C-alpha cells in the first residue's frame, strides 16, 4: 500500500514531466533534440547536487555544504587541468572524485565525532569549504580539458531512441553505477535504517556512525561529480558556490524523499530536477516577465506540494 503510494508519487512526477515536455513542444514547435540536449546539460549540476542531497536526507541528515563542496571540486579540477589537458585529466577527474568523497566523509566524521546536529556541522562546513575554494582560486579561472568537455556535449545515438543527450547518459550511468549496487546492499539498507530510526538501527546492530560517514561520503562523491560537471560545462572553475543548495533541497522534497529520513529513492528527485529545469526553460520560451517568472516558479512549487499533501492526506484517512 505504502509502496504503491510512493510509486504513485513518482508516477505523478513523471506525468508532470511528460506534460511539461508536451507543453514545451506546443510553445516552441521547433523544440527538439538540441533543446533536450541543452536541458540535460543544464540539469547536470542540479541533478548531481540533488542526488547528493537525497542520499544524505535518506540517511536522516541534511547537507548544507553541498554547493560549497561542488565549488571546491570545480576549482580544483579547473586549476589542475590548466596545462594538463591530455590523458592526465583523467587522473585529475579521479583525484577530484576522491577529494569530494573525502570532504563528504569528513563532514560525516565530524557529525559522528562531535555529535553536533547535522545541520550545524554542515552549516559550519559550508563556510569552511567556501573558504577552501577561495584559497584555491580567488577569481573565476582555470580551464577544463577539451576532450572531457566533449563528453557531455551532443547526443549519443542509441538504437530505437535516436540521439540521447550525452549529458543525460552520463548522469544516469554515473548515478546508477554508484547507487544501484549500494542501494540493495547491507550498507544501503543501513542508510535507510539510520534515517528511519537511528536508535532502532543501532539496536539492530547497525554501526550508525560508519553509516553516517558513508552517507556523507557518497554525497561528497556526487557533489564532486556536480562540481566536475560545472567545470566541464563552463570550461572554468568558479569559487563562489552556485544556487545549488536550496535547489537541491527543493528537488529532494519534490521528489518524494521525506526530510527526516528513511523514505524515498533517487529517481523521484531526479525527475523533480528535470521538472524544475523545464519550467525554467518554458518561462524563458514564453518570454514571461522575469519578475513574474519567479512568482510562477514559486507558485508551481507550492501548488505541486500542496496537491501532493492533499493526496497523501486523502490516502491516510
Amino acid at each position, binding site marked *: *500500500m*505504502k*509502496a504503491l503510494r510512493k510509486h504513485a508519487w513518482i508516477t505523478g512526477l513523471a506525468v508532470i514531466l511528460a506534460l511539461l515536455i508536451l507543453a514545451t513542444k506546443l510553445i516552441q514547435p521547433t523544440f527538439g533534440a538540441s533543446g533536450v540536449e541543452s536541458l540535460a546539460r543544464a540539469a547536470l549540476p542540479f541533478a548531481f547536487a540533488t542526488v547528493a542531497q537525497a542520499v544524505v536526507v535518506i540517511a536522516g541528515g541534511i547537507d548544507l555544504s553541498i554547493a560549497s563542496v561542488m565549488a571546491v571540486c570545480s576549482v580544483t579540477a579547473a586549476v589542475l587541468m590548466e596545462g594538463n589537458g591530455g590523458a592526465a585529466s583523467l587522473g585529475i577527474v579521479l583525484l577530484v572524485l576522491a577529494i569530494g568523497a573525502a570532504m563528504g566523509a569528513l563532514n560525516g566524521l565530524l557529525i559522528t565525532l562531535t555529535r553536533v546536529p547535522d545541520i550545524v556541522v554542515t552549516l559550519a562546513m559550508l563556510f569552511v569549504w567556501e573558504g577552501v575554494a577561495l584559497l584555491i582560486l580567488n577569481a573565476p579561472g582555470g580551464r577544463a580539458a577539451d576532450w572531457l568537455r566533449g563528453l557531455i556535449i551532443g547526443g549519443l545515438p542509441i538504437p530505437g531512441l535516436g540521439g540521447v543527450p550525452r549529458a543525460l547518459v552520463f548522469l544516469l550511468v554515473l548515478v546508477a553505477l554508484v547507487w544501484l549496487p549500494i542501494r540493495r546492499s*547491507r550498507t544501503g*539498507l*543501513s542508510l*535507510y*535504517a539510520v*534515517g*528511519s*530510526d537511528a*536508535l*532502532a*538501527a*543501532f*539496536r*539492530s*546492530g*547497525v*554501526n550508525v556512525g560508519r553509516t553516517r560517514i558513508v552517507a556523507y561520503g557518497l554525497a561528497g562523491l556526487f557533489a564532486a561529480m556536480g562540481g566536475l560537471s560545472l567545470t566541464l560545462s563552463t570550461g572554468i572553475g568558479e569559487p563562489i558556490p552556485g544556487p545549488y543548495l536550496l535547489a537541491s533541497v527543493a528537488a529532494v522534497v519534490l521528489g518524494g524523499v521525506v526530510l527526516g529520513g*528513511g*523514505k524515498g529513492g533517487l529517481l523521484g528527485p531526479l525527475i523533480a530536477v528535470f521538472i524544475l529545469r523545464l519550467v525554467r526553460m518554458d518561462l524563458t520560451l514564453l518570454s514571461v516577465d522575469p519578475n513574474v517568472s519567479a512568482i510562477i516558479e514559486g507558485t508551481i512549487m507550492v501548488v505541486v506540494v500542496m496537491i501532493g499533501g492533499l493526496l497523501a492526506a486523502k490516502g491516510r*484517512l
Partner: protein
Amino acid sequence: MTHEAPLLDASGVEKRFGAVVALKAAALTIRRGEIVALMGANGAGKSTFVKILTGALRADSGHVRIRGTERVVGSPAEARRSGLVPVYQEPSLIPDLDVADNLRLGGTDPAKFKAWMAELGFSTLDLSAMIHSLPLATLRIIDLARALASEPDVLLLDEMTAALPTDLVEAVLRVVKQQAEAGRSVIYISHRFAEIAQVCQRAVVLRDGATVGDVPIEAGAEERIVEMMLGEAIKPGETAAQRAAPAPSGTPRLAVRGLGATGKLTDVSFALHPGEVLGVVALEGQGQDELFEVLAGARKPDRGVIEVEGSPRRFAHPADAIAAGLSFVPGNRADALAMQQSVRDNLALPFSAHPRAWGPIHMRREGEIVARTIERLQIDTRAQGEVGRLSGGNQQKVTIGRWLAHGCDTLLLFDPTRGIDVRTKRQIYPLVRELAASGAAVLFYSSELEEIQLACDRCIVIFNGRVVDTMPASKADEPRLMRAAYGLTESAA
C-alpha cells in the same frame, strides 16, 4: 551442578543519567538452561540493566563476565556475537523498512525467522509488509522471532508480553520453555507473576537499582518477591464478586450501534452507563484497536451510530471526542507522549489544546493539579524533565494521569496497565473504580484477563469485529473469557 562458569555473570553494575541513579549495585548470574526472572517495580532499573548487558548502554562501573571472561560489551552487534540477544522494551525495528529488509539489516536468516514466526502462530506474515504498518503486538513477535533466529545463548526479554493478548502470551511462554529445554538461557522481565511462575526457576529482584534478592520460584514466593521489590507488602485487590455492581439505568453515557470501520471492525454495539466500568476482551486484532480509535475521534467510522448522552455524535478529530467528554488512553504510550517534554507539560497538554487556552498559563493552579496527579499515581519524578527518560511503567502512568488531571466523563482505557508494576496496578484498579463512583463511565480493554474481575462491572467480548458475548464481571472467569474470545460462545451476545 557442574563447575562450568556461568554463561553470564554481572555484578556491581552502576549507571547514572545525570542526577538520576538508574543502577547502583545490580547483579545477576545465569547458567546454561536457566530461565531467570528479573523483577522490580517501575523504574527499578531492569531495562537499563538489560541495555547494559547487551551493549546498548555503557555502565559507569561494574563487572560483566561472559562464560567466565570479563567483558565490556560495546554494542548490540557485539553482544549478539557473544550470544547475548535482547528483545528491548520498545520495538527495535526500522519503521520505514519492510520485514525482510529488517532481517537483512541484522543479518538474520529469513528461513529460521519464518520458522519461529510459525512457531509463534504467525505463519502467514508477509515479509514485504512495512514495519510501520504493523500492529504493536505483531512487532513484538517479530522482534522475538528475529532474536530467536540468531540462536542466542542468553535471550533477554524485556516486558516482551506486556503488549500481547493472552493467546500470544501463551505462545511466547511455550517458546521460552523450549529454549531452556534446548539448553539455552532466558532472562525474563515481566510484571505478571503468573507468567513468571509458569516458566522461571528463580527471580532476581531489583530495587532502586540494586539487586536485593535471588529467590527460587515456589509456592508462596510471590508475596516475598513483591515485598522485596517494593519494600512493603501489598494487599490483594477487591474483585467484582466482592463489589455491589451498579444497576445500569437511564440514558447511557455512551451508546454504540452497528459501528464498523475499514479494517477489522465490522459491527459493534453496546451501551455504557455513568458509574459503570465496561471491560472489553479480545484476542489480537479482533477490531478492538479500531473501536477505541473510532470512539476517540482518531479514525473515521464507515457505518454505525455513536450516541453520547442520547444524542448522536460524529467525531472528525479527537478534539471533538474530548469535547463530548470522551478521553482516550492509547495502548502504545509512544503515541500519547511528547517524549522530550516534561512530565508536567505532558500531563497538562490537554489544558492548552483549545485556542481559548493559548494565553498565559495559570502556573500555580496548574502546578497544584499536576502535583496532585503525580501524587495520586505515584509517578517516579526523578527524571521528570523529560518523559522519554522515565521508565516504561512511569510513562504509562503519565498517559493515564493526563486525563485524571483534565477530568473526563468517559474514559477509554486501552490496556492501561501495560508494563505497570503490581503496586501501581493495585492503585489503578481502585482509581478506575473511584472514577466510576464519581459518575464517570469507563471502557476498559485489557489484555490481562484477570483484570476484568479486578476493575470492571461488566464486559463484552469481541471476536472478528463483533460483540460475541456480554457478561457481568463476576462471572468473567478466565476459561469463560477465553472460550468467548476464540469465538466459541455458548450464550448469545
